[in-house]
């Protein structure tokens, strides 16, 4: 077993575009849940909206990158408004059920054969990332960054993805320490009290839902670009739950928590996979095959989510006192 390589693989996960996408989507959930107290279980739906909202215009009418991006973001806003209108007046658990249902509706719709022309149904869409890579300023070649070597495409998507994450963190950080952030945190604690102080709670919740949802949709785009494909199967409910795990790992009422949580999430997945596969190959573990080892990791994700929620709900970064619930 090559521990060096396994460790290196885990470290590599810190910087993959997928991790960046998770960080961004989890940051959106932090805005929803950590700061505003909105229990959005449909972040996967927002990611799908972003990915399809970007891919469909690009492929259907050759929309240039900025237009496709704009359409994706507008679709995301529309989705948030549609979700928010009926549910933001309701209790938290209703929002949870409606958002998870809405995300599944999105997935069913992009999967249906009736819309194959547009969405590619179960196969999804591909070859829409050309516009993005044509902007690549890095010359073709291999770039060595420490122990990692990347080609120009890998480098470009990483630079863009993490720049977006950094910008989003700054914006959210500015927002949550502004009076606006104070109001949404108040809503998280007790929305009636905030209402009694003359704040339009509904509007704030809607704004928070839209902001977090747009981050989710941006994440959806970043998630698909390195793959050059978007497939509905990737946007199931489990994606949302993995995002919650990452969020809780890092700390839900923090700005950097979701980012660090996403990094830990993917690094630990990579590490356990490396170790388990290594052990199986070297014969140290005989009672598992590699498929089962893969499944074992997701059992661990579930257990980790439970344990985190029970024993350390503030995450690694969070301040126990500033939890949204005790």
């Amino acid at each position, binding site marked *: 077993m090559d521990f060096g390589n396994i460790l290196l693989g885990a470290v590599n996960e810190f910087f993959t575009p997928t991790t960046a996408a998770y960080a961004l989507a989890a940051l959106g959930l932090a805005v929803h849940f950590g700061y505003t107290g909105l229990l959005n279980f449909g972040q996967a739906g927002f990611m799908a909206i972003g990915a399809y909202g970007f891919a469909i215009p690009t492929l259907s009418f050759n929309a240039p990158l900025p237009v496709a991006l704009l359409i994706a973001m507008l679709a995301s806003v529309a989705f948030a408004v549609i979700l928010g209108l009926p549910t933001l007046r309701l209790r938290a658990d209703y929002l949870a059920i*409606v958002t998870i249902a809405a995300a599944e509706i999105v997935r*069913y719709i992009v999967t249906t054969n009736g819309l194959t022309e547009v969405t*590619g149904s179960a196969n999804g869409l591909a070859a829409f990332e050309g516009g993005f890579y044509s902007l690549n300023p890095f010359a073709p070649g291999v770039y060595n960054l420490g122990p990692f070597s990347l080609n120009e495409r890998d480098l470009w998507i990483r630079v863009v993805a993490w720049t977006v994450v950094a910008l989003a963190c700054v914006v959210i950080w500015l927002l949550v320490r502004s009076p606006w952030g104070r109001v949404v945190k108040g809503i998280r604690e007790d929305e009636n009290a905030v209402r009694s102080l003359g704040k339009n709670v509904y509007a704030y919740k809607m704004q928070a839902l839209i902001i977090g949802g747009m981050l989710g949709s941006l994440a959806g785009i970043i998630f698909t670009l390195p793959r050059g494909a978007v497939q509905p199967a990737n946007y199931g409910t489990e994606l949302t739950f993995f995002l919650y795990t990452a969020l809780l790992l890092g700390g839900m009422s923090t700005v950097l928590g979701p980012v660090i949580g996403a990094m830990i999430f993917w690094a630990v997945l990579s590490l356990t996979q490396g170790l388990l596969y290594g052990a199986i190959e070297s014969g140290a573990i005989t009672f598992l095959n590699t498929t089962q080892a893969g499944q074992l990791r*997701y059992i661990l994700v579930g257990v980790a989510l439970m344990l985190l929620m029970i024993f350390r709900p503030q995450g690694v970064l969070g301040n126990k006192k500033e939890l949204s619930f005790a």
Partner: protein
Amino acid sequence: MGRISALARYMGMLVAVAGIFAGLLLAAPAVHATTAPPPASESPAPESSTEATAQDSGSAGEGEVTDGAEYQDRISGVLRNAGSPVSGVRIKASANGYEAETETAENGSWSIGVPEQGAYEVELDESSLPEGVALAEGQQNPRTVTFAGTSNITTLFLLGEGIVLQGDSFGTKLIERAVAGLSFGLLLALSAVGLSLIFGTTGLTNFAHGEMVTFGAVLAFGFASLGLPLWLALILAVVGGAGLGYVQDAGLWKPLRMRGTGLVPMMIVSIGLALALRYTILFFFGGATQQLPNSQSPMLELGPISISRNNLVSLAVSLVVILIVAALLLRTRIGKATRAVADNPPLAAASGIDVDRVIRIVWMAGGALAALGGILWAYYRPGVSFNMGQQILLLIFASVTLGGLGTVFGALIGSIIVGLFVEISTLWLEADLKYVGALLIMILVLLVRPQGILGRRERIG
């Protein structure tokens, strides 16, 4: 008055926004044809895919004919001529360069594995039919079979002369769908009543309920494959479901209640539990779809409609069980205690009810009902798979929300509505969208009547 006009305004906005969104989707011209979809075997993001279920799908052997046995998703059917099975007939399925072929077995059944759900052309090789047997008039061959959202699609080639499709008239179709929907709704109700009872007494929205459904079906399959008689296997599975409820409450939920954990954290814990249980079941059970004994059942003709025997039995069983649960709730001491706890736990505790005992019993009952629901769901789909519970979890939620969170009879009515809606909507909607309708209905009902159909307007207490 103000509220109503505001509501109307929001509805208007909603419709407008939805229209824009739908227009965006539909206005896009065809693009798909120009972009060859990637073959399933090299699905993107192999190492970081969130779909652990997409594990090594195996490559379809190039050139040589396969029956796709390694795939979970299957197209299947039974070939019968005048009631007796026809064997040795070649059937071929193809799409996107994938091709698989099989022959019907002794009992006339055939099944072709396909790498992914979608549209396939299925062709019956008429030259391989026995002498004197031919496809019935009007039977399309080859035909396109489309599926999504289920791992198994059935298509029947009818043989013989003068056989026409039964129930051609719209009315008959409607009645058939309604009966199937009732059967589906009642099996949903089994799970929904359990979920609703648990919500009512503890306030927990239990996302692990789907896994409790799966657990019942998997246990039944396990016991049956040990060679136990079917009735015993099913009873043991239901008892096992109650056991899972007991263990969950004793090992997890009661300690959390004692700690005073809030409802939202408990909800997230239940998500973690759902993931852990789902993958544990996958770990031991594997990713394949298995069949319970007698999963193929003959069609019964009842007057103008035909219904499979399993569906009819399922309908009767769920109806009887739900009536028993209702009687227990209304008549017995423990039933009354349960309703008292659901109504107002502190008051119930103050009047001498052992709230923890009631909740424990509710968890066991919920587990048993979910297990039974899982078994019936396995017959309905048909098939047992590790994620079968996850597939109907949202429908269960929709049922409970429709009826009103925490009300048992609401859950029953909600389930029946969802079941009917899912089945009847297939008359107009594509089959792969049938769950969408039910979920949309739930959202719309919440819009106009947030407390659900039977939920009381003001408060539960």
